[in-house]
């Protein structure tokens, strides 16, 4: 076992897969010689050559389209979109093409493409470097959507994504690349080396797509969340002083309904937390699923704590970010109900 931060764990996942499978290629802006603006592909081109790790023109639509063509021709491309905020020029290629090749050709053509992209705020990225557009992709049938919350899951899920025969959009919450973040920007940064999920095997292993994880057991209320917000929720639970059960959704599509709803049926209360905006956000899907499956066990209305329905403002990111205080208030509110 090695100690890795999320950047190193993701790098290790690609290293392992480049080594094991000659079909794997990496492509994206600045991913080759330079190793990526977040260093996630650092050293890979040096190790595997410029035919396996390719720098690309600045054209997200071109990157995704080229990855599709490569996938159709038997490769397993891992495309990096430098920021999730930049993915929209490639949106048509994801939605109309990547997600539906298998369907429209009745299984004759498909492209096993993984699209990696950093998401989320808290790095002073303003409205063009902070977005969490996961629900835009979970609404598209034919792609899987993943967001890890720690180095161990990041590596295991990325390996599963690359091995998957279907396309995966893999969101990397960049605020926790270097350490878990509990939502207080004024505290000194904590490294992953002090966290149990910073222990990462060097070799090949998988974390399955489609399985949520119980992060903290509790009996009062279930918190359904993912990405950076898993750590913020842990801080909020301590702040609120409730015995909450925290579920890390990990893969938004396909969704592990059983793990989520078993927890909510047990606790009878539920708070859904994500950093993305609220209206038509992924939380709406979670709340709808919970009420369908757990309605007769619920003791209180299910609440959502999310980013506000505004773009992510540069100067006011901590007022925007759904921090521990807002989550704790929601936890108290559901506990007081009924």
């Amino acid at each position, binding site marked *: 076992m090695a100690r890795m931060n999320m950047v190193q764990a993701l790098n290790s996942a690609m290293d392992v897969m480049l080594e094991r499978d000659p079909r794997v290629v990496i492509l994206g802006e600045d991913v080759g010689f330079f190793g990526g603006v977040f260093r996630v592909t650092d050293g890979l081109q040096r190790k595997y050559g410029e035919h396996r790790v390719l720098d*690309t023109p600045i054209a997200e639509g071109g990157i995704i389209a080229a990855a599709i063509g*490569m996938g159709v021709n*038997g*490769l397993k491309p891992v495309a990096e979109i430098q920021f999730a905020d930049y993915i929209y020029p490639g949106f048509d290629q994801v939605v109309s093409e990547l997600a539906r090749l298998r369907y429209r050709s*009745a299984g004759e053509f*498909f492209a096993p493409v993984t699209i990696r992209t950093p998401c989320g705020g808290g790095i002073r990225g303003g409205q063009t470097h902070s977005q969490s557009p996961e629900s835009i992709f979970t609404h598209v049938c034919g792609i899987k959507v993943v967001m890890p919350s720690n180095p161990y899951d990041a590596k295991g899920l990325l390996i599963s994504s690359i091995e998957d025969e279907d396309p995966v959009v893999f969101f990397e919450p960049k605020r926790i690349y270097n350490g878990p973040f509990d939502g207080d920007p004024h505290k000194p940064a904590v490294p992953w080396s002090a966290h149990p999920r910073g222990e990462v095997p060097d070799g090949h292993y998988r974390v399955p797509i489609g399985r949520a994880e119980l992060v903290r057991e509790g009996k009062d209320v279930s918190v359904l969340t993912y990405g950076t917000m898993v750590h913020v929720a842990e801080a909020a639970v301590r702040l609120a002083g409730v015995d909450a059960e925290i579920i890390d959704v990990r893969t938004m599509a396909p969704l592990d309904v059983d793990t989520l709803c078993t927890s909510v049926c047990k606790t009878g209360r539920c708070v859904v937390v994500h950093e993305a905006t609220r209206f038509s956000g992924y939380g709406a899907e979670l709340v709808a699923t919970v009420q369908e499956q757990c309605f007769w066990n619920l003791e209180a209305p299910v609440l959502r704590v999310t980013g506000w329905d505004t773009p992510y403002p540069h100067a006011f990111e901590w007022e925007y970010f759904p921090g521990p205080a807002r989550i704790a208030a929601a936890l108290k509110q559901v506990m007081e109900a009924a």
Partner: protein
Amino acid sequence: MTPRSRLHVPAPPARPGQEPDFSYVQISPAGAVNRPDVTASVRDIENLALEMVRVLDDEHRAVGPWDPHLEASELQVALRHMLLTRLFDDRMQKIQRQGRISFYIKSTGEEAVAVAQGMALQPGDMLFPSYRQQGLHVVRGRNLVELMCQCLSNTHDMCKGRQMPIMYHWGSGNIFTISGNLATQFPQAVGWAMAAAIKGEDRIAATWIGEGSSAEADFHYAMTFAAVYQAPVILNLVNNQWAISTFQGFAGGEHKTFAQRGPGYGMPGIRVDGNDFLAVYAVTQWAAQRARQSGGPTLIEHVTYRAAAHSTSDDPARYRPKEEWRAWPLGDPITRLKQHLIALGEWSEERHGRLEKELEAHVTACWKEAESYGTLSSGPTLDPLTMFEDVFKEMPSNLVRQREELRALRSATAAERQQPAPPVAKKG
């Protein structure tokens, strides 16, 4: 008066009721354009993007350096493929008009593009067509019954009822699935070609786009990526003058040729008479040879004319002169190849008539067989529960649940239909 800017709105040379005017189409004499070596550097051959490669002259002879010197037997095969494509199109159009399929797109007047290119490429080369290259399937020997079954969405439909008519695919024939979203296949073909180069194969890719959809960003992505990585791909821009109702000026064709975009990106651009089978064949062969020996991509602009409506949902009489196609200066590709073969002493009107009858009968027989596998209106169709398949390789639990929900709904409805009607209650 102070100078001020003025918005330029391109206007076609003729609208309904006006005389067709194709004086804007610059045409080189047959045989006039030089044929450079396939290793020539882009900057030395920019003239190819401005002139027009033509082989067949007005006396129906093959002239000049681009003559591919094909055997008469090959030309007869080409004529057969083009004629079959046209007769197939005509039949499917009629069938659509009878309401037996929902939609159709003809390639009338443009048959030489797909047929000549399909013949000039190798069977292992991967083709990423747009929706007007059905000739590629014909060249590669596809059974027309399969294409018809796709248009019928019946029990033998390769797409399992998921796609509109004409959105074919053919895995074993190396023809990619057609998208209804225009231009997306252009950069995908480049990615496919990049992978071929990464793997060190000698297969190349070819893809087709209309001049209209070359305005999409996908065109730019494809050109950039192809040039940057010198991908082994032939990028074909079929300039058939009309994108539904907007003429080629709306795609940016007023000031420069589309082929000139090639050198702009750093690759050869070749402007070819798209209705001249021999010229299309020759430039394709040139570009394929260049791509196969690491010379990189070529953009080919096929100057042709969309003689039919855009689709069965379109009425071109509303936006262009009704008989405009008769004035098209580059003629009809089938007539031109036929006349060439006759001039060579290798064909006759009588043989042509016999071939036409034979192919008509073939299309009729294919249609009879296709219809026997079901029609969209009267069935049989595939089991609707197949709609849940192939969204993913393995069906996730939410789709399994939804499929069972539909299954239950359908059996309940079927059971209801079998029950006798309940007696009408009488007032006592």
